[in-house]
Structures are given as C-alpha cells and as structure tokens.
C-alpha cells in the first residue's frame, strides 16, 4: 500500500516525463491523463484497486521514460504549427 508521499512523488515524476516528451500531443496526453488518474486514485478507497493501480502506474512510468528517449531520437525535427504559433506568441509577449 503506497504512502501519500510515494504517490505524490510518482505523480510528479509522471508530470516531469510529460513535460519532457518531445511530441506535442503525447506531452499533453500524459499530463492530462496522469492528473485524472492520480486524482481518481486519491479518491479511491478500495485497497486492492489502489494497489493494482499503483503497480500499473510504476511500470507505466518506465514505459513513458523509455519512449521519451525513442521519440527524441526518431521524432520529427520540425515542430507542429500549433507549437510554432505558441512559441511566436510567447516571444511577442516577452519581447
């Protein structure tokens, strides 16, 4: 049974791998889904389900970490237009 601190730490690791993922769509997917999953995990009282979800989450984290490397190696070098527009808007805000 994971402690609250362990769950928080795993959650933060998910968000970190989400932020680092090179692909825009997967990045947002990880961030969105991990928030949903961890919030529902926090609300869940069934011990067996929580334990199963915890184990699944730990193995999933490793999958995302490995794939983040693969996507860095083989992902498209050119960004999507959405990212370009967002970057341009950010530069305008800053500049």
């Amino acid at each position: 049974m994971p402690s609250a601190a362990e769950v928080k730490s795993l959650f933060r690791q998910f968000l970190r791998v989400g932020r680092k993922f090179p692909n825009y769509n997967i990045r947002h997917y990880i961030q969105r889904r991990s928030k949903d999953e961890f919030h529902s995990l926090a609300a869940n009282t069934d011990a067996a389900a929580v334990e199963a979800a915890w184990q699944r989450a730990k193995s999933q984290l490793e999958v995302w970490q490995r794939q983040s490397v693969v996507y860095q190696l083989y992902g498209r070098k050119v960004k999507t237009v959405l990212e370009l527009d967002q970057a341009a808007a950010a530069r305008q805000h800053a500049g």
Partner: protein
Amino acid sequence: MALFRASEQLLANSARKAAPWLQSGIQILQRGLSAQAEPAEDEDSGAIEMKGIRLRGAPIYLDMQATTPMDPRVLDAMLPYMVDQFGNPHSRTHLYGWESENAVEKARQQVASLIGADPKEIIFTSGATESNNMAIKGVANFYKDKKRHIVTSQTEHKCVLDSARYLQQRGWDVTYLPVRSDGRIDLGQLADALRPDTALVSIMAVNNEIGVRQPLAEIGALCRERKVFFHTDAAQAVGKVPVDTSSTPIDLMSISGHKLYGPKGVGALYVRRRPRVRLEAQMSGGGQERGLRSGTVPTAAVVGLGAACEVAAQEMAADHAHICKLEQRLRDGIMGQLQGVVLNGPEDVARHRYPGNVNLSFAYVEGESLIMGLKDIAVSSGSACTSASLEPSYVLRALGVEEDMAHTSIRCVAARGKCKCNSVSTPASGALGVEEDMAHTSIRYGIGRFTTEEEVDAAVAQTVSHVNKLREMSPLWEMVQEGIDLKTIQWSQH
C-alpha cells in the same frame, strides 16, 4: 540611407513574427527589382517543402479515421521483438521460436479480451481489408453449393463492396441495401432482403466517413433467427466503442491495427466457434492460424496489435469522455460561427454516431479550394475531390438519396422548414436547391485520444476564417444573401 536600412530591418523583424506571406512581401520590397535569387530557407517560413507547397510546420493532425498515431505504449511493447527477440513464432525447436510464440499467443488473448471472444476465435491477418476479403469470399466459397446470395449496404468500405462485386462476377446475387439520410440501415428492408439462399450479411459497425453506428445487436439477432451469417467490419469500432461478441450475435468481425493506435499492416478476423462458422482459406501455405491464413505471423506487429487492444480496453471510457467533449467543442465552434453548415450523419453521439468522426458540409464553398486553404490542419475531404471527377463520395451520395427531400441536391438543402443547416429560413432559402455540382464541400474531422483542446480551437478558427474568405469571393453566396432563389436562375452557356 542608413535610416532606410534600419527601418527596413525593423520592418523585417516584425514581419518575421507575422505571417509568412507578409514576410515574403517584405523581402520583395527589400530586394526591389533585383534579379537576386530568393533566400532558399528561412527559419520560420518554408520549413517543409512538398508537392509545391511550403509548410511552416507539421499540420495539426485531425484525420484519425484514415489512421492513428501509434501509442508509445504499443511501440514499447513491439521494440523487443524487432531487436533481439526476432524469432519466427512457428519455429518449434529453440528459444527464439518459443518466446515469439508466447508473445503471439499473449497478443491473441489481449485482442480476444477486448471483444469478449475466446483466443481460439482470433485469426491474425495483414489488416481489415484482408479480414473483409477472407470473411466474404471465404464464407461464400465454402457454402457455394447451397447458397447464392449476399446482403451488404451501399455505405460499406471499398474492400467489402469490391469483394461483393468479385462474387457477383462469379454468379452470386448481391443486394446492396440503401441507407436512410442519417446513414443507418432499415431493419425492415434487411429482413425483406434475406432469402433462403442468403449466405452472409455484411454491415459495418462504424462508418469511416460519417461515423454512423449500425444496430449490431438487432441485425445479429435477425440474422441468427434466419440462419444467415453476420459479418461486420468493425475496423473503426473496436477499441473505441464497446463491442462484445459474447453478448452480440456476430459471426465474423474484422479488426484493423492502425485504427486503434496500433501498427499498420496488421489486423485480425474474429471467427465464431459456437455456432461454428466455416471459411475457405484465401491464403494457401503451411496451414498457420488454424489453416485459415497461412504465412508467418509477424510477431512484432501482432504484439503491437495486442498491446493496442489492451491499452484501448483500459482507456476506452476516458477516451470516450475526452473525445465527446472535443466533438462538442468543434461542432459548437464551427456551427456557432458559420451558417450553411450541415453535419453528415446522426447527431446523437451517445448511441448513433461515434463522436470522433465529424463530417461537415459547407455550402457555397468549393471543395478543392477549401482543402488547399486548410494547410495547417490535416483533414480529409468527404467528397473525393482529389479524384478527377470532383464527385462527392459514394457514402455521402447514399445519404443524400431521400424521398422527403424535394429536389436532387445533397444534405444542406431541404424542403421548406426541414432545412438542417442553420441558415436563415426565408422562403428563398427554404428552396436552397443547390445542385450537386454547385459548390458543395464536406470535410471530415477525426478526433482521437491524443487530440487537444487547443488543436480543436485552432481547427475551428482556421475553418471559419477560410470558409468566410471563400464565401466572400463566391457569387452564389452573394445571391443567397440577397435572397435570390438559386433554382430560378437561368444559367447561360457561352
């Protein structure tokens, strides 16, 4: 001179942040009439050049019905079998074969769990096209002594229609059932079409062009009652909407890997064992896959399909909620800001349409120009405007043939008071008798697991702006705005 140069630079810098077309305009001003060659590549503009078009970046992908990106979890499952665990699953004598076989059987179990089947009922193929061919030709050839008739629908995928035509050329009768205006088949018509010598009914579960869901349980029950096999092409349905072969009387079902975030080039065919469905094999060889599909089973691809099915089973509810939300956002965004837009297919996403498929028709806009203008989003056009004939697709055509529509046009236009599009219902627009060849366009937006709200908002903005731009240039639109009844116009020939 220095001042001029400085201000030029300032202009150029601000232009770099603005649209690329402005930037190239600035470049022309800077160069004046010099014969100097244009700079080949700029950091912002023209990052990709293909087919004569300069793209500043990769477009937003909204074509999930064509194919879906592979989920990283699927890729992760596949990679070991493309690196060190490369054995042939049919090699019985060494570790490489054994571990490959284990992987294939595990994948088979994963696919079976998703659709409520037994692993022995799953045959791996090269994709839904092969599965459809196997089902239709296989069943027909096996029962050709006693049966002579096949029933399918007009909106099926090309591979189903082509297989039916292949059988027609060999003496089979085929009934192509029409569909209603929302794309669903009429169960009464299906019941009437069934004959004592009908071997198979093939109706797809979710249509790839408009997303309409057919009533599989009712069709299956009808077929079971009349002792006819029921095949469904569930390529767009599996992993997205719940499909359960243990509770629904489906005899054969085609599954496609790359429609559910899996790899391309792999699929499966579900063949029911109780009551047994017999097939004649289309691929001859060493008798793999229970003799129904010979050929080495591609371990890595099949593992990917299995992993995709497992992920889909876990994520189905969350995906559905997310996609419904985005679908609402997309439709409200476009239809709230534009008139003359019609949804092709049923509106009800809870039961009758898969929400990830939004096929919209835009009146008074030319197909080719709209697609060319939507460079920043990757969508598909419902009309086969890429074909030389500029004809609407056969699926959309099948929807448009409606008795209570008072004229020959498609979709958007309807008899008085029944107009589905939200243009002003004046008596003139009540007879918006826009003919087929007059400026009608449909775009299919495909929303998926990885689509974000920002992407949907960007798609809405681009669509609305481009449709408005094209309509401003359209004389038909001007006339409609003035209230002229287009059907009364005498078009002159020069």
